[in-house]
């Protein structure tokens, strides 16, 4: 069955520190992978996506993610976190008929 696991429910980092949010997926075919961010009280905004090609993808707001097929992972990274990055982050895999299967999300808190 298709699934997405985000092992970290809640992460706290200091402003300016680096960030890595973990995402593991289970999918039988070539996965199409997404990271979305949800700010408090807002909808979801696409940060980046991986379909094929270069396994390191760049997104908006200085985020990047690396697809590792051998580890079934698609971790999100940012070299220096800003206070405005505090939000909920969702990893998702695109299944047949464009059904997005989401992970449970990781809440990021940023300390000044």
């Amino acid at each position, binding site marked *: 069955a298709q699934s997405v696991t985000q092992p970290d429910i809640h992460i706290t980092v200091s402003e300016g520190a680096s960030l890595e949010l973990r995402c593991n997926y289970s999918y039988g075919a070539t996965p*199409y992978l*997404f990271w*979305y961010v*949800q700010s408090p009280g*807002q*909808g*979801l*905004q*696409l940060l980046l*996506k991986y*379909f094929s090609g270069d396994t390191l993808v760049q997104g908006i707001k200085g985020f990047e993610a690396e697809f590792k097929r051998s580890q079934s992972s698609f971790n999100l990274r940012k070299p220096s976190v800003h206070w405005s990055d505090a939000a*909920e982050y*969702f990893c998702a895999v*695109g*299944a*047949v*008929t*464009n*059904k*997005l*299967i*989401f992970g*449970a*999300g990781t*809440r990021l808190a940023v300390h000044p």
Partner: protein
Amino acid sequence: DTAVSQTPKYLVTQMGNDKSIKCEQNLGHDTMYWYKQDSKKFLKIMFSYNNKELIINETVPNRFSPKSPDKAHLNLHINSLELGDSAVYFCASSLLAGDTDTQYFGPGTRLTVL
């Protein structure tokens, strides 16, 4: 200009009532979706329409009925509301129905059933 809009933003109602949530997209997309986000922030797809035709219908109670009057609109009608229907409902749209198409989300409708 708002790409995907939903109304209302908040909806508080009593158990047993019938209510509707409306969604409109001005992106010219062919495919629209409804997702439910529960109290633990878990997001799950409910329905998807492509060119006004239903293409995804997850195991959702038949009290939930989507209606797509045209490609730009996908409304969600809920009959006989229950406490467990309390959630945030997100509408989304994508250009096509392929599994690589980016979905654009609306701001959500927070439904509270008392």
